[in-house]
């Protein structure tokens, strides 16, 4: 996936001379995960910028660059480091278009490696998506596969809206087929979910790092004679409810899976909306499989915190028991 993201950045830099990359350690080092490897060498330090160690002004300066006509792609090194920039994101990036009656565009992408499962120290494994999904003016995207990472990052950069782009860091090393010649304009539309695996008993909605886990759970369930339909949301703002509603109307059951805490989460929003729209089709309440309401635990405990195949199957059992 790292190579797919790198190729997407390269293609975007090639396509539009206004695209700039900015972040900590992204130029000389190529990023701590090497997502920007080689780009400074090929595009120069005017377009691939090693910023001072100050997240708020990485985003704040991107606002000014956007106002001057540039399309900044900012890397925040880890999920837990985004909070110093939170004010600039929710107060400025998200609102400037509407505050100027549409005169000022904010075509900014904020790349954010997110999620746990890599045995990292604290503040390096968080899932802050709900804060951004809650904020009008932002789009939030989370690819789950190398192919989607390649397409979705280019779509995010081409969008005139600001995009929080969540990269599932524990899937950075996943391998997968990527069509480098894919026509971005005709790829799956930005904002659309995808039914990754069809099934008839229970719909599983997930995104980012949890897609692979949910597909594994579906394999196990199939061996037990249960048919799970796995929907990869891909976009968290907006959420593609038409695709999700159509799936739930087929299966009558929904389990939502994410690493982020369940309280006031993407899963909570989905549960509320599905209850409103699918009430008469449902055989069971929506069940959430999520992180717990604790700060992310020390990494030797993270396997107990993160949803895994067993916890997903447990939720499926509970759903089927109604």
């Amino acid at each position, binding site marked *: 996936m790292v190579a797919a993201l790198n190729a997407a950045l390269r293609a975007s830099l090639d396509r539009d001379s206004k695209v*700039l990359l900015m972040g900590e350690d992204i130029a000389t080092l190529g990023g701590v995960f090497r997502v920007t490897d080689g780009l400074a060498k090929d595009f120069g330090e*005017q377009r691939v910028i090693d*910023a*001072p160690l*100050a997240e*708020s*002004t990485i*985003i*704040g*300066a*991107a*606002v*000014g*660059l*956007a*106002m*001057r*006509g*540039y399309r*900044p792609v900012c890397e925040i090194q880890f999920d837990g480091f985004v909070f*110093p920039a939170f*004010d*600039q994101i929710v*107060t*400025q990036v998200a*609102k400037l*278009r*509407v*505050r*100027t*009656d*549409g*005169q*000022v*565009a904010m075509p900014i992408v904020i790349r954010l490696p997110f999620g746990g499962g890599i045995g990292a120290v604290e503040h390096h494994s968080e899932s802050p998506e709900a804060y951004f999904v809650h904020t*009008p*003016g932002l*789009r939030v995207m989370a690819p789950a596969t190398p192919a989607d990472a390649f397409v979705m990052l280019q779509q995010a950069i081409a*969008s*005139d*809206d600001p995009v929080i782009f969540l990269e599932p860091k524990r899937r950075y090393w996943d391998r997968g087929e990527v069509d480098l010649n894919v026509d971005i304009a005709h790829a799956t539309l930005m*904002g659309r979910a995808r039914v990754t695996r069809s099934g008839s008993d229970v719909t599983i909605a997930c995104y980012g790092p949890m897609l692979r886990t949910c597909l594994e759970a579906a394999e196990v369930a199939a061996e037990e004679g249960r048919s799970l339909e796995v929907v990869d949301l891909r976009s968290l*703002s*907006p*959420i*593609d*409810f038409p695709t999700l509603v159509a799936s739930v109307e087929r299966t009558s059951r929904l389990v939502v899976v994410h690493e982020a805490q369940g309280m006031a989460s993407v899963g909570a929003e989905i549960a509320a909306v599905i209850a409103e729209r699918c009430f008469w089709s449902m055989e069971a309440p929506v069940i959430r499989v999520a992180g717990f309401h604790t700060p992310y635990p020390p990494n030797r405990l993270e396997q107990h915190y993160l949803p895994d195949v067993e916890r997903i199957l447990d939720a499926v059992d509970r759903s089927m028991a109604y």
Partner: protein
Amino acid sequence: MHTHGGDDFVQLLTPEGERLDHPDYPLDVTGDEVRALYRDLVMMRRFDLEATALQRHGELGLFTPIVGQEAAQIGAGRAMRPGDFAYTSYREHGIAWCRGIEPLTLMGLFRGVTNGGWNPYEHNMAIYSIVIGDHVPHAVGYAMGIQRDGTDDVALAFFGDGATSQGDVHEAFVFAAAFHSPVLFFLQNNHFAISVPVETQSRHQLVKRADGYGIPGIRVDGNDVLASLAVTRAALQRIREGGGPMLIEAVTYRMGSHTTSDDPTRYRPHDALEHWATRDPLERVLRLMEREGWADGDFIAGLDAEANAMGATLRDGTRALTPPDPLTMFDHVYAEPHQQVTDDRAFLARYLQAAPSGDLT
């Protein structure tokens, strides 16, 4: 504490209206130029009175008075070129005036009919920034864009003494210095962040912080429009020529309240207004013009008539500012359609149709 006091700043016009020379900031001005600056100052002071009165009459929810700070802003504003770009806080009516933004345009925000008010690209001035210090990194980013475009424009960030305590302002200095960006930091030290005195923000003169970032800093009499003009002009020229970022600290005083909701008698030293009134930004220009024979009765009367006309336009225009169609709140939240916004808009449209405003209990 007297660290912020003293007159160790660039001054070209004394409070008594006497011209001073400064070796680094020579300024030749004609009578016409001084009259034009005085007109700006008078119009701003009248605007302030009128807007404050409109708030007292219930026509504005809030207003942020500029009184006392006219010279700092007019001097800086008139030093700018059209291609320069200003990022300001919410008290920079004088900068807006110099950027050609009509006073009435500023009323929309304070009357609550818009959260912005103008197209930034028409005036090369961003909309007011309410969150303290947030806009200072924006100016640096804009300046980084200027560098990549290869022009000699300058981005200016206007902020106050309170903002200097914000992390974003510190970060902005760091970025500007690191990238040698063409940005001018124009700090108006008006001595208060609402009620908290500048001594709480800094133990020594704020201009000294520039040295820590490795950029030049200049302290100027912010109540002297000629000094503000000359120093800003020189700084902009230096920056245009590739000199990198600079800081100007304009020492002034907020003679009014923080906003019309504020009560400065709870925190302002009892003799402060009296003291600063002797350093009034307008009075000294009038004295200079009288001394030089640049202002006759016709000029003063003409200015008075112009200010009266502006006041009338402002009063009538403000009262005519009506709330926009409620459904416009959904416009421009996103560039491209977003289903949540589309659904919410459709809901409110249906709801308003079913229960028109006024029929609800």
